[in-house]
């Protein structure tokens, strides 16, 4: 190989165990399959909770509705695409947009389709059971029945999506070999989950801010209860804090818990384990700048208190985490999945030259 070739093609990753050879494309598909499932589940739970929350606020006018739904919309999709399709942001439009619209790449439908397409790419790698679970969810969404279930009882619909995700993740645990593939699946799952928990917290932070007068009131408690339920954390919170729902404690629980599997810290600790397994580095040792920033955030979470974060500004802190997760996503891509693209014409030319030299 010439020197230029070495620059064009990634060198082998250092120190890692060579148990099995995994294609970069396969790693990429496993990672995104896992992220999309987790994303679909989170969107389903968030919509379910918010729809139920709205039942208690039947008297809202258009503006209040908009105030409620826009942050939800922002956390799971983008406003621009939404307003190209709809005039008003209300329960029905936002829910439809986040559930069924193919134009929204983060709708439940788009997520499940994308997860399934990724799974199809790696059918030889995942277990039959995993593929079947995902495929069944896909076939359900493609069927006419799906719309019917959704319009007659949205709750049952979202329940079904959540169950599919749980089934899939449970089957992954029960049937997938513990190899690099498992690490990529976990990276996808925990990265997506951490990101979504920051967004769930952030939504309510926005909503609650302007209504300081309500703090401690019935509305406030209902809202924070919804935050917990959006992260499937209400019961866990209650067991942990046998007292009323206090916003600061809720934030603390969702950020710092080391035992609740959807808290930000819990997810980052899992990510840390998987990153080290993949890179083969010693604990506490980080490679690229993206990995280092991640390590720094994890240790912040290990040492900061909720008061310090609130002083700093919760919203800002959550955004910082989101940025770091984006950088980590870049790191994973560049380190394990990216190979410089081959320019077909140049490659053909190169190969023809090599043939003539022989």
């Amino acid at each position, binding site marked *: *190989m010439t020197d230029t*070739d070495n620059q064009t*093609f*990634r*060198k*082998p*990753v250092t120190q*890692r165990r*060579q148990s099995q*050879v*995994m*294609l*970069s*494309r*396969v*790693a990429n598909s496993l990672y995104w399959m896992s992220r999309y499932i987790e994303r679909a589940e989170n969107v389903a739970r968030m919509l379910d909770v918010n729809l139920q929350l709205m039942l208690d606020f039947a008297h809202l006018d258009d503006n209040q509705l908009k105030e409620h739904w826009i942050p939800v919309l922002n956390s799971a999709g983008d406003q621009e695409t939404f307003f190209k399709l709809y005039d008003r942001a209300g329960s029905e439009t936002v829910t439809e947009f986040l559930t069924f619209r193919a134009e929204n790449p983060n709708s439940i439908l788009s997520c499940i389709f994308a997860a399934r*397409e990724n799974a*199809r*790419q790696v*059918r*030889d*790698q995942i277990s*039959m059971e995993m*593929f*079947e679970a995902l*495929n*069944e969810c896909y*076939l359900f969404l493609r069927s006419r029945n799906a719309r019917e279930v959704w319009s007659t009882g949205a709750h049952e619909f979202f329940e079904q999506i959540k169950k599919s995700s749980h089934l899939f993740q449970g089957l992954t645990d029960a049937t997938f070999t513990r190899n*690099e593939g498992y690490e990529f699946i976990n990276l996808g799952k925990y990265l997506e989950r951490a990101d979504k928990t920051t967004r769930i917290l952030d939504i309510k932070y926005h909503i609650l801010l302007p209504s300081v007068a309500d703090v401690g009131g019935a509305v406030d408690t209902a809202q924070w209860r919804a935050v917990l339920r959006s992260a499937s954390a209400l019961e866990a919170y209650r067991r942990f804090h046998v007292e009323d729902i206090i916003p600061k404690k809720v934030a603390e629980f969702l950020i710092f818990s080391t035992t609740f599997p959807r808290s930000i810290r819990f997810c980052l600790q899992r990510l840390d384990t998987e990153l080290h397994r*993949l890179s083969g580095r010693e604990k506490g040792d980080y490679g690229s700048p993206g990995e280092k920033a991640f390590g720094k955030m994890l240790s912040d979470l290990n040492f900061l208190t909720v008061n310090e974060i609130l002083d700093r500004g919760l919203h800002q802190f959550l955004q910082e985490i989101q940025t770091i997760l984006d950088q980590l996503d870049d790191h994973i891509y560049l380190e*394990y*999945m990216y*190979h410089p693209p*081959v320019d*077909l014409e140049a*490659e*053909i030319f*190169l*190969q*023809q030259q*090599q*043939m003539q030299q*022989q």
Partner: protein
Amino acid sequence: MLFDRYETGDYFDEMFDGNGGVRDHYHLVSERLNGIDRAEHLRKQTAVDLAFMRSGVTFTVYNDDQGTERIFPFDLVPRVIPDAEWTRIEAGLIQRITALNLFLHDIYHDQKILKERVIPPHYILGAKHFRREFMGFNVPKDIYVHICGTDLIRDREGTYLVLEDNLRCPSGASYMLENRAALKRAFPDLYRSAQVRPVDTYASDLRKVLQYVSPPSLGGGSQPNVVLLTPGVFNSAYFEHAFLARQMGIPIVEGRDLVVRDARVYMRTISGLVPVDMIYRRIDDDYLDPTVFRPDSLLGVPGLVNAYRSGNVSLANSIGTGVADDKVVYYFVPKIIKYYLGEDPILSNVGTFLASEPEDRVFILENLEKLVVKSANEAGGYGMLMGPWATKGEISEFREQVRANPRNFIAQHPVSLSRHPTWCRGDGDAAGDGFEGRHVDLRPYILYGEKVTVSPGGLTRVALRKGSLVVNSSQGGGSKDTWVLQSR
């Protein structure tokens, strides 16, 4: 009671003899089927269809904006072949692939068969799939065709005939395996008592063949690194590619996952570039390497052919095998067998006329409405004229084509394919459901490694449309499990 309206018609029926009696080897099957009613059969059939859909045992339909995946319809009634009959088929297939392999070696080396005018040279040298670039090239262990799917049919007398050889990338083996699994679930007791020869070693047999023809491992491992090369997830046979790769425990790769450096093939992994030794390719020659063949192909790997020539990687099947399943060459296969093996063919061809032979051409052009005309290099039931069923327009269109390019066409007398009881839905009326005769063919899979083995059975395809003779999945075909009974 499911057979109460069954008619064998003027065909060879696999299950019933000319007097309506059940053939010996179908006794168990017929007994079991007579023991269930319409509702139960429907229940079983629905369960199988659902299971196929759920586990994604599907093929992709082209020319459909949604890229729809459909299941390859599976009919629950197994096709049964008695042991003695199978022994003869097996011997015939082994004879055929052995001769074709010698033929390929010859035409890419000394061309004795052409020099001795057993086959007029222009038929081979001008064949679309003849790869003159590989003249004098030695393939590993002298094996050209590692995987072959040969289509067999039976005529009105029940004689097995070879309809065509598929020597490039024959597909369907996964359906043979999935059909067997489905049938075992639907009729476990019947399957057990019938004493059927198992087919499920196919994947491990295939892996052994691939390892056998692989060059020594470049990566230095004790086992060669074998991969399956697929055109990708949008290919209609993608399910099969993933299925076989999983069964063999080898990676499935696309062209973009591979790169060639210094005439060696590497795959792009999370640990950098890892050498590849053996490629089971499910991509046709034309698309393998844009450097050598079609420059616009995005499916292949630039430099792959050079790596192959250098002996650093093996391909199954070898490049250039397509010349032997050209339908014009098919005409010569009986002569090929005689020439290389000195034997008479055990399995006969369907009587065939070559449009490029002046006498045959006159006959073909005068009898188009009675003949089946086929393009020499098409597969999947495309490029065909079924004379007796064709419109005047289609016939005159083919007349022009045959005149313009005779080398590209052959013609055959239509064979009235044997029929097999098949579950057919009535016209929207459940009481109309029942068994009717439908035409079938048979594709056994032949593997050529250290020795030649034939899968006991294969894929029985069935033309589900009433009266249709076209069994291809893309054109309304379904399939059946195929039972070869153990010798008693």
